[in-house]
């Protein structure tokens, strides 16, 4: 040794729990929260009395009642028609946008390509309120066209196709995001090869480009279809006046509005819905799992070639601009106008009736103001706790030698397959069984936990790629330096993953701020959240204050996303 000083000596520090205990605890906790609540719903659906009542026995009567109820089948039919229309429309539109914005010389395509993402970024409910305020039969735009122009009103938002129209406007950007990703990763030299073989640009698009993004289209079709089957707010707001029931509203009404409440029946319906969506997503995994076939092979990718639109350039620009105005600008305007005017009708100039009374009402009314503070509390505390949970679970799932880690990898994405209504009901029954006193439900923890579990998959999908991009040698180096598993996680992984956790927190915050489906079954006086308050009071006819609440929700979302972008580079659609 050259060392003049004595060599250091010291005893290794140990975490107070052995790694396997920590891993088992995290794993069990994760599974109990994610998968566990399904058990009580299934149980409730197979039990003759509500679980909070004594007695009762095993029965299939709930399923029998459900499957012999003509109203259920009517609701299924409406939901399926709606989902099919939404899927076809949004895939066609989303793909067209992706091609237009990534492959052509459309003027202002950069602007459109981010501006059209607005429906992905801002909460769905306020936008929906804006749509309704403008395009519903008594809406501002509808009436204005009716009164001032000879144009026919070809839409009726209070019908299934009309609802699909709204839904397409909201779902198309999701398809667009996925298709854009697929197009961006595709090698443009394949297209050039087709071009140099003599194919016209359009033919190239049709025969080369589109087939290559087919897996992405299939994938997004399945996602949109599954999401459309469970959507609640839209049929509740637009379907009620014509008494059009969807699966979700059927469950909602039979739980909340029918006396006595049909809780067994609804549980059975929830189980059927969950099973359907799960099967759909399993099929999706099957189908899109086989993507290698479509992977473009070989060579260096060249930057995307631009298709010259020629004479179609300006007409297409006009069409895009009109679409953008109709689907985003006008509804957002509708939301703002509803919030900031005392009355919104074409016969009165809105500028003369500007006021902030609706906001005043939001501040004064305890239900409104409580919804805001509740939603913020849930989004901040729940978002933070969920972020830490996601990080810890993802690390057990991907960075440990824990025996059951793969089960956790599947469990973390499963909440994506759980309709929000089912999540809510699952936690309702879980709390009934585990906490008969109702203390959890009376606090914000009830709704908070349900929201957190529901957004787990979202946070995980933002977090995981960052975790995967951190070389495993980094934690191995900590281990060989003398750190046990948990110490390595704490001192190295968690530190390095701080930005990823920031991104995941921002996304969870935004998602939990606007979530409402699970709250339907969980809400108690005092635990109102913004989304559900908007929904309930809009139906009750109080448009102005609801729109004001919507504006507040959108504003908070944009501010938080803005900070997120500044601090962590959060991007929409992660």
């Amino acid at each position, binding site marked *: 040794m050259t*060392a003049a000083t004595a060599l*250091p000596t*010291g005893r290794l520090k140990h975490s107070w729990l052995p790694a396997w205990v920590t891993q088992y605890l995290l794993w069990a906790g994760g599974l109990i929260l994610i998968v566990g609540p399904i058990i009580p719903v299934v149980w409730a659906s197979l039990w003759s009395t509500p679980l909070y009542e004594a007695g009762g026995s095993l029965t299939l009567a709930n399923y029998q009642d459900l499957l012999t109820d003509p109203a259920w089948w009517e609701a299924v039919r409406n939901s399926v028609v709606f989902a099919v229309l939404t899927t076809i429309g949004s895939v066609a539109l989303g793909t067209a946008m992706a091609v237009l914005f990534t492959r052509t010389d459309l003027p202002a395509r950069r602007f459109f390509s981010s501006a059209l993402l607005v429906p992905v970024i801002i909460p769905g409910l306020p936008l929906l309120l804006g749509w309704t305020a403008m395009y519903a039969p008594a809406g501002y735009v509808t009436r204005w066209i009716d009164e001032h122009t000879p144009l026919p009103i070809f839409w009726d938002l209070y019908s299934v196709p009309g609802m699909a129209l709204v839904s397409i406007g909201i779902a198309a950007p999701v398809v667009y995001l996925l298709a854009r990703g697929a197009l961006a990763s595709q090698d443009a030299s394949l297209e050039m090869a087709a071009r140099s073989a003599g194919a016209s640009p359009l033919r190239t698009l049709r025969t080369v480009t589109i087939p290559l993004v087919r897996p992405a289209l299939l994938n997004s079709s399945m996602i949109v279809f599954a999401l459309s089957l469970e959507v609640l707010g839209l049929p509740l707001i637009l379907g009620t006046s014509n008494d059009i029931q969807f699966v979700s509203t059927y469950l909602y009404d039979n739980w909340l509005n029918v006396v006595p409440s049909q809780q067994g029946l609804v549980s059975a319906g929830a189980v059927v819905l969950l099973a359907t969506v799960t099967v759909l997503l399993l099929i999706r995994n099957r189908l899109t799992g086989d993507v290698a076939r479509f992977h473009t092979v070989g060579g260096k990718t060249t930057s995307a070639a631009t298709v010259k639109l020629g004479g179609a350039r300006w007409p297409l620009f006009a069409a895009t601009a009109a679409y953008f105005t109709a689907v985003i600008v006008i509804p957002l305007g509708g939301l703002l106008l509803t919030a900031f005017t005392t009355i919104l009708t074409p016969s009165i100039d809105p500028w003369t009736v500007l006021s902030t009374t609706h906001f005043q009402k939001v501040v004064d009314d305890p239900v409104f103001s409580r919804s805001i503070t509740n939603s913020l509390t849930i989004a901040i505390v729940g978002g933070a706790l969920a972020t830490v949970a996601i990080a810890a679970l993802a690390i057990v799932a991907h960075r440990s*030698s824990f025996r059951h880690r793969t089960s956790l990898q599947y469990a973390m994405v499963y909440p994506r397959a759980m309709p929000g209504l089912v999540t809510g009901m699952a936690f309702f029954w879980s709390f009934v069984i585990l906490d008969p006193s109702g203390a959890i439900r009376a606090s914000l923890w009830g709704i908070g936990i349900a929201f957190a579990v529901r957004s787990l998959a979202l946070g995980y999908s933002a977090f995981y790629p960052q975790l995967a991009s951190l070389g495993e040698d980094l934690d*191995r180096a900590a281990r*060989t*330096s003398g*750190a046990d598993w948990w110490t390595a996680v704490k001192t190295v992984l968690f530190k390095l993953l701080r930005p990823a956790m920031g991104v995941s927190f921002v996304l969870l915050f935004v998602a939990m701020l606007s979530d409402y489906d699970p709250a339907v079954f969980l809400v108690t006086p005092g635990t109102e959240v913004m989304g559900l308050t908007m929904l309930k009071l809009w139906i009750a006819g109080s448009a102005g204050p609801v729109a004001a609440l919507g504006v507040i929700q959108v504003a908070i979302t944009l501010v938080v996303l803005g900070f997120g972008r500044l601090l962590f580079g959060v991007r929409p659609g992660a």
Partner: protein
Amino acid sequence: MPDLQISGLTKAFDDNVALDDVAIHGKDGELLTLLGPSGCGKSTTLWSIAGLHDPDRGRISVGDAVLFDREQGIDLPPEARECGVVFQSYAVWPNMTVADNVGYPLKLRRVKGAERADRVREVLDLVELGDLAERYPHQLSGGQQQRVALGRALAFPPRLLLLDEPFSNLDAKLRERARTWLRDLQREIGITTVFVAHDQDEALSMSDRIVVMDHGVVRQVGTPEEIYDAPADLFVADFIGTINLLEGHVLRPNRTHVEVAVPGISDPLLAAPTQPLAADAPVTLAVRPETIVIDPAPDQAGLNRVDATVVDRSYLGDHVRYRLQAGSVTLTVQTSQTIVGSTVALGLPIDRTLAYAGGGDRG
């Protein structure tokens, strides 16, 4: 420093056997290199020692300490094995300064305050990074990062130093320097070291001994000279350096030399058998290009003489490599002489023409 004993080490990934009954004895203070084609199990061996892989069978011990013994149910976690590991990717933590990276193993062992600072400074001086203690990894060159990784591995004196292709991310010039530097450092602190070599030049120039592996099996363990001059089998002969392989069959086995008929060469060749060979057995002869003598003096003994014509010639600065045709056999010859004319007489030294049982299929 203690020595490293590995025996019966076996590891399969599903049905892919990565290590098959590997036995290695690393002597105290020695630099032992693992060498072999990609996927032969070098990293798996190293990681099994470090505790990052979980072998199916076998035993690993360092001195008196048993790190792993499947039969006795001993399997120390990586943190308890006290192996300093340098990863191919360096794995220097980007969020910590150089000093914090190096101080980390000490912090985990509750070495505090001035003692820790002193040790960190000492180690940084050792790896010649004394001036860069407060820098972050992204402010360092590849070579410096690699020295941070080494410093971290040595900070709390490990039982063993394990390095997995530490130089493969450096450019050629730097790599050469780093080799000598590491070799000197290793000698200086006298730590038993297992090193996964990136290429054979690295292995030959640095190692006390080399372990040649193939498909999870140890083919030969020996000093660089032994491995190069007396490869244990055709695989090793072919894998290390360049070698001429001539297939034929035994005409007359002899205790010291066998006489081998090589199709395409008129006269039989004499060769040194590496194992007992029977008459008529198929054999492969192996001759290093630089051992072949050009235009040998008529009275020079111990040579197989062969006439050849020059096919082509590549000039490599300090030597020339010729491709020559002898009968229907192509030979590579390396020499500093210049061959004049197109035909030449060659002498293949009998002692250095090694005969291995079997055909060209080097299993």
